């Protein structure tokens, strides 16, 4: 019979079943972000080695200009992935909202109103995703592939084969001039502000905690009073609105829009989010990681473009980075499993065939097999 006095010194690592204990979330996160910083620094060094005036504000401006919309879309996607879902319709919503804005403006709507309409479309599209995934419980990967097609199709219905280029010059300037007083593009500044907001919400508010809990342990979250379905629905609507915002910026930056605006960008956004350390399984991820990932991707792209490396090689590098970012942890665990197998043999540890039961069997079984 166990006789452990109630005041025994605490055992820090108790047998908890078949899992080994995990390092706390923040500690693991920090390791990933540190790695990203290293990669970023390496990229910057590489860039400035290649071209002496790489590290100047012009480069920064162009990086921000190129990445701005993608970066804005990455923020809500990060939250969605943290809750264990995914949204592949982001780029299609970017296109659709841009088309809606362009179409309405070309029909005489004031640009401000057209923008509001575009945002409303984003909210509606996000709500569609939200209803299908959160309320009906359909798998988000399949649903958002469907809405990806649907939104793109709607954009095509709205604009047909036309390209709208008639936008007020003072608005399209955001694609050319930096925010006065800074060296940053408008989309960069907007992203920066949003990143700070998202960062605060995710890491320092109850809503952020609820989002993380939803991704890590949806059942426990429900038992703690968190309305998991509401959270997911809200995040999809948020994603829709922010993709619409990105669509507006994208359109104005390019001073034109056609139905295929942004086609294929969703993969960039997903890649950036995953590379930023957000786990596809849900529950983990930091805004800092995503920001670093955005900067790395942008810088890398810039460096390679300046080196006149073809876009194809850039693709290879992006894909390679993404692969490495998931293979490393996965490979590490695989090696760990392999080592465990080599140590204990293919089956569980053997007990001796015949062992005389000691008089007080409890004592010998205190040194139970802790590791399994």
């Amino acid at each position, binding site marked *: 019979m166990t006789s452990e006095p109630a005041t025994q010194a605490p055992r820090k690592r108790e047998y908890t079943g078949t899992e080994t204990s995990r390092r706390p979330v923040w500690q693991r996160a920090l390791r990933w972000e540190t790695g990203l910083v290293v990669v970023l620094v390496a990229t910057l060094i590489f860039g400035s080695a290649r071209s002496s005036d790489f590290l100047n504000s012009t480069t920064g401006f162009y990086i921000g200009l190129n990445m701005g919309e993608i970066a804005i879309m990455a923020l809500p996607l990060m939250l969605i992935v943290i809750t264990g879902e995914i949204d592949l319709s982001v780029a299609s919503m970017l296109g659709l909202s841009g088309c809606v804005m362009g179409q309405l403006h070309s029909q005489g709507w004031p640009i401000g109103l057209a923008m509001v309409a575009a945002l409303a479309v984003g909210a509606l599209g996000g709500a569609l995703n939200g209803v299908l995934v959160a309320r009906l419980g359909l*798998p988000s990967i399949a649903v958002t592939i469907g809405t990806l*097609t*649907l939104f793109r199709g709607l954009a*095509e219905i709205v604009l047909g084969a036309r390209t709208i280029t008639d936008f007020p010059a003072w608005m399209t300037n955001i694609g050319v001039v930096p925010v006065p007083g800074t060296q940053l593009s408008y989309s960069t500044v907007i992203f920066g502000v949003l990143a700070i907001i998202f960062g605060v919400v995710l890491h320092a508010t109850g809503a952020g905690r609820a989002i993380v809990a939803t991704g890590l342990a949806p059942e426990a979250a429900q038992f703690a009073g968190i309305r998991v379905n509401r959270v997911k629905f809200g995040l999809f609507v948020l994603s829709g609105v922010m993709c619409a915002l990105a669509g507006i910026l994208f359109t104005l930056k390019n001073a034109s829009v056609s139905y295929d605006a942004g086609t294929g960008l969703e993969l960039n956004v*997903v890649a950036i989010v995953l590379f930023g350390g957000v786990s596809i399984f849900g529950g983990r991820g930091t805004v800092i990681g995503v920001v670093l990932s955005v900067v790395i991707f942008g810088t890398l792209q810039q460096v390679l473009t300046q080196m006149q490396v073809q876009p194809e090689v850039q*693709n*290879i590098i992006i*894909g390679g980075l993404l692969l490495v970012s*998931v293979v490393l942890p996965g490979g590490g665990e695989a090696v760990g499993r392999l080592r465990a197998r080599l140590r204990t043999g293919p089956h569980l540890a053997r007990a001796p065939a015949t062992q005389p039961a000691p008089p007080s069997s409890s004592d010998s079984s205190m040194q139970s097999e802790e590791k399994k």
Partner: protein
Amino acid sequence: MTAATSALSTRFARGGALLRAREVGIGVVLLLVFGVTTLHNHNFATANSVQQLLSGAALIAMLGVGETLVIVTRNVDLSVGSIVGLSAYVVGDLFKDHPGTPVILGFVVGIGIGAVIGAINGFVTAALRVPSLVVTLAMLYIVRGIDGLIVNGVIITSSNIPNAFIAIGFRTIAGIPWLAIIAFAVVVIVAYAMRSFRSGRDLYAIGSNPEAAALAGVPVARRVFSAFVISGSLAGLAGALFLALHAEVDVTGGTGYELLVVAAVVVGGVAIFGGSGTVAGAALGALLLNTINQALVASRVSAFWNEAIAGALLLLAIAFDRWLSLRVARGLRSAEGAHRDL
């Protein structure tokens, strides 16, 4: 079991019947679409038009077969489009640089490329236990990049390809296009394997209940690896056929195919969560999507509506599947609950 429950269970749950119902359903919709469109536009039912329908769907159907294997095991392969592009170009390049190359070698090379990429996907997913969504997404990028490097701005045109090869793209036998026959053969072979070989049933087991599969002694990692290799190989084959069909290829070959394939597969009744669905259904799904596409064109519906309709269809298919499984579950639960109070 009471008479009530046994009657209910037979009605709701003869697995075979339910499955066949889905394929039959698609077939019915297919015929409906075909019929309605022909009423509008008699040209839709001409031999030429039907051949176009079959050829157009053949490639996606083939990709759908491979994708079904992967999705059944609860994975996904997003790299198929890029594989098609790369394979198409490399085969074309081969013919261009070595004009005497036999046609069969072209196919071998195409399939081989697909197999290699599939093996990488399979290894990383099965052995390293990395989620396939991420792996195949990354491979999509990498393969596109490699493709771009190889293409280097040079377009392969029909003058570079042997006539015998191009012939496969448009020749017919008894009125049926070669492409459709090849696709049909692939579907039949794989469907038979999925049904009649242990390894095929293993795939369904893995997707239906991975833990139980491992417990039952199914070699999960090996099977998943094989599924990806097959998916890659079929994509490689489809790439070679792409070249034959279009008689030219540039850096954009196969772009966007991965999403089309997933759509076709889901419409065809393959559950995105794995464990159920048939390659026949996937092929029919591809055919249906293509037919609807062409039907819209034939009905003078603005081509601009195609994508939206495709998207809406996909959503409907997903929701319908879900509704169906809920209804079955509820029907059985209430039957059980009703006689539970005995």
